[in-house]
């Protein structure tokens, strides 16, 4: 629990205070929730407008309603399903090019391109495809998603590659592999492994960004929600919003959970030996959190075999003898 860093174990007085605060705030939240519920009830939010979900309305059966929502969801997932693998492939290719390149002429253009693509809003890229190239809705959405996410994936993998111990690369080169093959066969698999949680988290971003398709009129889930609420009248807006937002949140939360799960599993089993995924900052990995942590070695304890390796000297129980204790030893 995060609180444990800041607070001492509570004593009797703190416990009493804690209990009081717990009750006060719980009551406050319940009161606010009740008030919101009452306000909704007064505005007739809980009237028969929700029936559209199970009885249908205006000659549409509930199957039609859910069918149209499912179609919208399908288009959302389709855009994501096309964009994600392509973005990962391109991003991977860029990362390999940058790492394995032997001359600046090869590594420079991808570097510049990823920096540019990362600095532009996804919506701007979608507008480029839609209004300038005149592409279809789906492909405009996919274009925006691919360009941006490929750049981010390249950056994630770059951070992962940079975080590997130098020995990996040196070993590859010394057995006669070319720099490109070293990157491909030895470094990349390890980088993907330690950066897997970050890659999965990026998938959530990609999924969320498919909803930008709404703005360029791609008929994905959000647009379907809008169209449905236009068809069934203004009253049904909140109904379709609740359903649609619920679907988005449910999907994204499951993928986020997956990322957390993978991260914990990697940490427990050790992704490689003692490898920790570096954090991704705006300009690559944050220096002090790299693997083996330069900060841990460069800091106050540099060169100290014990502290430098991040270990503390073990404390030994101090033998305590009291007069008359005889031979017994006790821990302090």
């Amino acid at each position: 629990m995060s609180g444990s860093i800041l607070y001492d174990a509570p004593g009797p007085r703190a416990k009493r205070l804690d209990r009081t605060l717990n009750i006060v705030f719980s009551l406050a939240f319940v009161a606010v929730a009740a008030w919101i519920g009452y306000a909704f009830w007064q505005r007739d939010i809980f009237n028969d407008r929700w029936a559209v979900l199970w009885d249908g309305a205006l000659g549409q059966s509930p199957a039609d309603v859910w069918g149209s929502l499912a179609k919208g969801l399908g288009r959302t997932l389709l855009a994501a399903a096309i964009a994600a693998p392509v973005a990962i492939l391109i991003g991977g290719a860029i990362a390999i090019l940058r790492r394995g390149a032997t001359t600046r002429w090869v590594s420079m253009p991808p570097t510049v391109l990823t920096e540019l693509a990362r600095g532009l809003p996804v919506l701007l890229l979608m507008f480029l495809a839609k209004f300038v190239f005149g592409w279809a809705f789906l492909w405009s959405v996919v274009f925006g998603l691919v360009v941006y996410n490929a750049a981010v994936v390249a950056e994630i993998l770059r951070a992962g590659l940079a975080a590997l111990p130098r020995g990996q690369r040196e070993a590859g080169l010394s057995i006669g592999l070319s720099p490109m093959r070293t990157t491909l066969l030895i470094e990349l698999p390890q980088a993907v492994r330690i950066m897997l949680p970050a890659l999965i988290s990026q998938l959530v971003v990609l999924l969320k960004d498919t909803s930008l398709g709404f703005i360029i009129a791609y008929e994905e889930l959000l647009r379907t929600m809008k169209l449905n609420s236009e068809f069934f009248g203004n009253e049904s807006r909140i109904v379709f919003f609740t359903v649609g937002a619920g679907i988005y949140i449910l999907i994204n939360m499951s993928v986020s959970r997956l990322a957390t799960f993978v991260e914990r599993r990697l940490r427990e089993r050790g992704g490689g030996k003692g490898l920790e995924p570096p954090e991704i900052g705006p300009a690559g990995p944050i220096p002090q959190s790299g693997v083996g942590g330069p900060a841990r070695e460069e800091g106050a304890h540099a060169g100290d075999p014990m502290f430098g390796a991040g270990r503390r000297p073990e404390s030994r129980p101090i033998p305590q003898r009291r007069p008359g204790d005889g031979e017994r030893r006790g821990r302090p």
Partner: protein
Amino acid sequence: MGTFIEEFGTIWGAFLATLSLTAVSGVLAFAWGTVLAVMRVSPVGPLRTFGTGYVELVRNTPLTVMFFFWVFVAPSLGFVLPLGFWIAVIAMTLYTASFVCEALRSGVNSVGMGQAEAARSIGLTFGQTLSQVVVPQAWRTAIPPLISVLIAHTKNTSVAAGFAYFELVASMQRLTNKHPTDGIVIFFGIGLMYLVITIPLGLLAARIERKVAFAR
């Protein structure tokens, strides 16, 4: 190229609109995000639950859905807000605050347990522990992620284009309609305006990272 110079007045106005939305909602998001972060590390259970619930919910909601709520759904719940700038500010603030909260919280969590223990054991009070020992360290760790949140926030303001706020991306649509043959030039011109904001922020982040890197 001529088109870009000719229409620079429009683009500049749109740039200022993007900038003002970024600044106003950025400041508000920082304030609300700080409150949320305090809630999430507070000893009071219900506040922690609220903070966690809020962050989980908002972080998994697409920004477009957030905008959609304030523009189309909120009026039927009785919140009628002026369309355009203020709706954009509210949606952006509520959205970005959850990311600000996470950046700050990860900063607090990164402070070693021993730091707070040491502070307590030399007799500092809770307030002193927080202000003299924990926050100064947490702050350093939190700055780089905060800047990346700010960069993402700047780019996210583009979503307001779809909800009746005239900023850079919306100006792109208008200008490409006006000059259909110069689409590429307009795209690069407007992209440049974003890069003018995002690239210096990225460089600043890299600089600060080097400067505040410290041993733990």
